[in-house]
């Protein structure tokens, strides 16, 4: 006889933890189905109750009927239903595992690239140890360049000759 089962051995709490929020509805539907199966199983006892043959032997008048029934009932063997789906599930799991492997590879590659970027950022010269020349080396476009792009002190946008005040620009339309 195949392996018999009487109750659920799945840790639903752990499974629920791992499910991302957008798939919780699927998990709920799945759990409902599983609970339905479990309820069907629990509706009947694992072994049927014993028939009291003696009582029937005394009261049933037809001779030999009870003995006949008893012989046939004891000889009756109910076959356990054939399981031809588990193989498909195993095949599906092999597929899924391959996909998971690929996903984890990709993910690890991403993690490596992120860590490389973090290391790059950490290796940059900190601002409190930069001189103005180091700043020019690091950001040549933003550094002060008196030869090519001279600016008036204090070198912000407001004091330059081509600055247009946004508020004055709004009033200029009359």
């Amino acid at each position, binding site marked *: 006889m*195949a*392996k*018999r*089962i*009487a109750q659920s*051995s*799945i*840790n639903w709490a*752990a*499974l629920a933890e*791992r*499910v*991302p929020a957008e798939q919780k509805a699927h998990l709920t539907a*799945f759990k409902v189905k*599983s609970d339905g*199966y*479990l309820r069907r*199983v629990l509706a*009947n*006892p*694992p072994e*049927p*109750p014993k*028939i009291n043959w003696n009582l*029937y032997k005394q009261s*049933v*008048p037809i001779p030999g*009927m*009870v003995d006949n*029934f008893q012989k046939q*009932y004891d000889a009756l063997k*109910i076959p356990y*239903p054939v*399981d031809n789906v588990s193989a498909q*599930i195993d095949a*599906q799991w092999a597929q*899924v595992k391959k996909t*998971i492997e690929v*996903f*984890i590879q990709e*993910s*690890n590659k*991403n*993690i490596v690239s*992120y*860590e490389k970027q*973090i290391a790059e*950022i950490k*290796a*940059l*010269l*900190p*601002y*409190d*140890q930069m001189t103005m020349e*180091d700043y*020019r*080396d*690091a950001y*040549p476009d933003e550094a002060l360049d008196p030869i090519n792009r001279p600016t008036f002190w204090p070198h912000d946008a407001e004091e330059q000759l081509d600055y247009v005040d946004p508020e004055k620009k709004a009033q200029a339309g009359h």
Partner: protein
Amino acid sequence: MLSRIALRSASARQTASTALVARGSATDAVGVRDEKNFPRPVRGEPGKVRLGFVPEEWFQFFHSKTGVTGPYAFGVGLTTYLCSKEIYVMEHEYYTGLSIFLMVYYATTRFGPKIAAWLDKEIDAVETNWNEGRVQSIKTLEESIEDEKTAQWRAEGQEILVQAKKENVLLQLEAAYRERLMTAYTEVKRRLDYQLEKSNVERRLAQRHMVDWIVTNVTKAITPDQEKQTLDRCIADLSALAAKQ
């Protein structure tokens, strides 16, 4: 004086290698600096002074010969000599300077720490502003790493799902098996119970019929003089009973 700075910076370079190491630039583009032979200078601590302007090294220089009070005594003597010989003339500007010095001293001791703290806060704000971009990037990247790890963990949870599917299949098989057992049992029991009930009903009918038949036959068989005899006997019995009372 400059030798002091040289001595201090030499010692700072040795300690700086363990603590605040000036980092090199990651971009070896323009202005590559030889970091090993010409490390970037790190700002050290200001030299220790006494009375605000006299270097500590002078006091150490005196210490072995004249002890702790030596430099002070030397200073007092020197000042007295300069003032008494009028080498240092105390004229009008001297008193102006003295008054200004006292006012500045009072101001720095009263307001100095507060103003220093406020200025430090402003500088820190500017520095934080500069570093904002880098710090944000690092934080975002670290969060991305965490998210990737979580996604991996979730993907592994699919194993539990597969187990649940297998279990569903087993549950269905078990349910079907149990239903078959119960069907067999109930059918057999039904037939046996039917036979039992049938025999009971037959017996009961036969019994009632027999009783009725016996009663009607007996009642028919009672002749009139038998009835009279029975009645007389009953009256005699009754009187005997009454007499006995």
